[in-house]
């Protein structure tokens, strides 16, 4: 593949301003992680034959913490974490993050090149003809445009940081090369997803990241719960993929094209606002709901926290789960033609944002809090792309990638420290439960500071990145609620404008709750008295630089990332600041779609906008204040001593019993029906009994009839033969006369 792509590179898009720049090496972007996957995969295979003392099957990793505990246990009690490392660990540490860094450098070079040219037409690099079937001509082609560029930068940039973090975090794991192989493979597929110039290629990436997600969630597959979590993610995603596929089929059968350029060229064949385009968009959104964990398909994401924490940061927060947002932004042309579908997206996003935020209020597992937070923030992004503020959605995607990655990695740092502490004292307490933490700021000062930055960012405190992106989304919703095609549309009998105001309200409520639960998490984790334990307390310490280094970088990005796209409101306030850089950057891709959904009037009046900003800031501050005043970390007890919660608390703690409801409503009936009807009735009865055995019996009966002709008497055969020959000859003779 490498060779053929290199050959065809020469014949790729010529004449495009990017053709002679670093962009002609765009194929290297996914190829480098693929190379890393191959190398690391081979290393893991060679190592699998001779795993050494750190045998994963012998130690039974329940969690990332358990693994180290067990390996350590096999060597006796020690304070440090040093165990026998994988024998190729050094090479893996070089290759794994190395290919990502190289990809990032290349991406940066392409970005620099792209800044200098007008990107009205995307740069498409055709590698080879992939599926020339009849009317269907699908090329393996990579598409570079501002949108995919942003995504590539996020993926490779954040990806590089998380890879580096992983070097420290996973260093003692026996599956170290396998981990990096999966991670590299994931980046490869993710880049394919965002670079693919057509839906099928994007779908390959879409499925590939799903596969890697499954592999990494179940990375410690020797424990049943982890394997189950992986399966759950896989199965739930399949429902979404079904939507993606149907949407693709509909597109092809109606437009005859599947590449983005071809669809853009023939989209006018679709009737704007018609049922067809609405159906297509809704099916696409089904795919997005699966991949990006929206209602009702969000349930897999919290369980996906079973994977290593850096995986949660990269896949289940920063990149893969945002693929749905990317898909809608990529298909903005179609969505802008389907206001009803867009409203659906916005509504589902809003409801998800609030719903997940409420659950996040009562979670005790630090990663679960972040998981629901992710779901909630993804809901925000969908609100953004749903109301046609594609740039805002992508903006939030980007800032979220920064601060959520930071939060996850920070939590990883906390867990790392907690685990190390419990490990040193051979305690079996839960290293991820916030009730076991508290007062960690004196032990993990760097992490504490950085986590607060991220918390302020996600809560929407001004100057921090999340404030700008969230505000952008909310103000867009408010702006569209009046006088736009969306407001004029009718959604299930409800006027669009009413719906949008409702969504705005949902967004505000979610913002309030976000501020509350994030502050709660910070308070319980870092403030108040320490509940880890007397012995353990002495072992709590900051992680090595390979882990804190990426945290610092992400902290900086979380803090200042918002300045990439400052609203007009701020530039009028302080003219020195940069303006809506990102929106302008994305203009060639989503500009027309945004304009179509925004209607005639562009921005809100400045006064309204100031009012909205004020409301948002008030809400965020209010949330933090409420949390700080209401919660008493000092009163919290250890997990083992905490009482059962009751009422609404219990309900929230059990996540509204959604999993249980699904179990009752879908899983159990499915199993029952499968057993009783499909298995016993259809499979055993009809398929096996009637079809398989029946056809066998039919064949046997027919064969018995035929066998009666086979007397074994040659004489009889001769008689039959002669009579037949005479008859045939007779017929022939008659025909001749």
């Amino acid at each position: 593949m490498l060779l053929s792509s290199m050959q065809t590179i020469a014949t790729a898009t010529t004449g495009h301003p990017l053709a002679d720049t670093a962009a002609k090496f765009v194929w290297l972007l996914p190829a480098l992680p693929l190379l890393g996957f191959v190398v690391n995969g081979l290393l893991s295979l060679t190592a699998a034959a001779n795993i050494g003392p750190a045998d994963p099957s012998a130690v039974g990793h329940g969690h990332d913490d358990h693994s180290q505990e067990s390996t350590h246990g096999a060597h006796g009690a020690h304070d440090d974490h040093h165990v026998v490392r994988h024998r190729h660990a050094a090479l893996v540490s070089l290759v794994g993050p190395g290919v990502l860094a190289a990809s990032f450098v290349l991406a940066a070079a392409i970005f620099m090149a792209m800044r200098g040219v007008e990107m009205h037409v995307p740069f498409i690099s055709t590698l080879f003809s992939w599926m020339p079937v009849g009317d269907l001509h699908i090329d393996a082609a990579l598409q570079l445009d501002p949108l995919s560029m942003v995504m590539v930068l996020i993926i490779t940039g954040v990806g590089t940081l998380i890879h580096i973090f992983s070097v420290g975090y996973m260093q003692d794991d026996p599956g170290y090369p396998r981990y990096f192989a999966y991670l590299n493979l994931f980046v490869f597929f993710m880049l394919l997803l965002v670079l693919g110039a057509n839906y099928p290629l994007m779908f390959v990436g879409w499925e590939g990241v799903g596969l890697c997600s499954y592999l990494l969630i179940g990375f410690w597959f020797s424990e049943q719960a982890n394997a189950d979590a992986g399966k759950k993610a896989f199965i739930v995603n399949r429902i979404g993929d079904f939507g993606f596929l149907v949407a693709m089929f509909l597109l092809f059968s109606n437009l005859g094209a599947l590449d983005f350029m071809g669809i853009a060229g023939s989209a006018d064949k679709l009737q704007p606002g018609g049922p067809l385009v609405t159906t297509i968009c809704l099916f696409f959104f089904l795919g997005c709901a699966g991949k990006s964990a929206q209602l009702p398909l969000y349930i897999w994401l919290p369980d996906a926290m079973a994977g290593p924490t850096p995986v949660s940061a990269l896949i289940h927060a920063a990149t893969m789960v945002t693929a749905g947002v990317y898909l809608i932004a990529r298909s903005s042309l179609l969505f802008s033609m389907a206001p009803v579908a867009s409203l659906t997206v916005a509504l589902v996003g809003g409801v998800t944002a609030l719903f997940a935020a409420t659950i996040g209020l009562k979670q005790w597992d630090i990663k679960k809090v972040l998981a629901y937070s992710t779901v909630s923030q993804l809901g925000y992004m969908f609100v953004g792309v749903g109301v046609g503020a594609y740039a805002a959605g992508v903006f939030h995607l980007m800032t979220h990638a920064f601060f959520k990655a930071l939060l996850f990695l920070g939590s990883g740092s906390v867990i790392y420290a907690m685990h190390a502490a419990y490990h040193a004292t051979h305690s079996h307490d839960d290293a991820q439960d916030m009730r076991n933490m508290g007062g960690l700021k004196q032990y993990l000062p760097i992490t504490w500071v950085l986590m607060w930055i991220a918390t302020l960012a996600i809560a929407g405190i001004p100057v921090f990145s999340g404030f700008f992106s969230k505000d952008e989304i909310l103000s867009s919703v408010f702006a569209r609620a009046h006088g736009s095609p969306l407001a004029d549309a009718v959604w299930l009998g409800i006027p669009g404008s009413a719906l949008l105001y409702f969504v705005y309200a949902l967004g505000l409520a979610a913002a309030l709750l976000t501020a509350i639960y994030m502050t709660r998490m910070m308070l319980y984790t870092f403030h108040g008295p320490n509940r880890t334990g007397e012995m353990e307390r002495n072992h709590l310490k900051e992680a090595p630089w390979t882990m804190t280094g990426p945290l610092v970088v992400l902290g900086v990005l979380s803090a200042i990332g918002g300045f990439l796209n400052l609203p007009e409101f701020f530039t009028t306030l302080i003219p020195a600041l940069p303006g809506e850089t990102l929106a302008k950057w994305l203009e060639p891709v989503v500009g027309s779609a945004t304009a179509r959904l925004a209607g005639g009037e562009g921005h809100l009046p400045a006064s309204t906008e100031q009012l909205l900003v004020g409301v948002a800031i008030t809400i965020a501050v209010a949330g933090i204040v409420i949390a700080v005043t209401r919660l008493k970390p000092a009163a919290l007890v250890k997990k083992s001593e905490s009482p059962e919660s009751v009422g609404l608390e219990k309900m929230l703690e059990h996540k509204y019993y959604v999993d249980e409801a699904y179990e009752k409503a879908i899983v159990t009936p499915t199993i029952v029906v499968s057993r009783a009807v499909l298995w016993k009735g259809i499979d055993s009865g009809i398929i096996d009994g009637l079809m398989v055995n029946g056809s066998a019996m039919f064949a046997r009966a027919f064969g018995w009839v035929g066998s009666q002709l086979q007397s074994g008497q040659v004489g009889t055969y001769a008689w039959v033969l002669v009579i037949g020959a005479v008859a045939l000859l007779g017929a022939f003779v008659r025909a001749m006369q």
Partner: protein
Amino acid sequence: MITNEFYPLFYTFNFYVFALLALMSSLFFVTRKSPVSAALWLVSTMFALAVLYVMLDAEFIGIMQILVYAGAIMVVFLFVVMLLNLGQPSEFSDIRKNGPRLVAGFLGILLTAELLTLAWSPLDARLLVTTVPPSVATAGAGGIIGPVAGPLFTEYLLAFELTSVLLLVAIIGAVVLAKKRS
């Protein structure tokens, strides 16, 4: 050399004599109970046919008929009959009952009629031709065998080679089949 066309009467007479001989012999062949008698009548038929071939200007085929059929194949048949000691007609009743015989005879007559109809209908005019095409009549450089050998080794070379393979296979097959199990 004196060619046949100077003796039409003699020639025709002989043809009929041997045709009748062939017919009679074949009738005896199918009606004899003893396999040995039947085989000998069949040899007689083949002899008569060989003569007919010669009269039809196919001397080579006539000789081959005697050499291959009478001299080899039928000898093997006879040999097998004797080897298995099946020569006596009394050992088992070989011919079917009257009913099947009648039906078989009827079928045979029907078949003959049909074959004759088919053979005569398209050939009427040309069947009366008694002159011999030059390719067959005049012996070329290869003597009388040449006209047959020519196409055999050029046009039908592949078929010829295939028959040689067939013979080889038959030899091996026969040896394997007839070999006593040790």
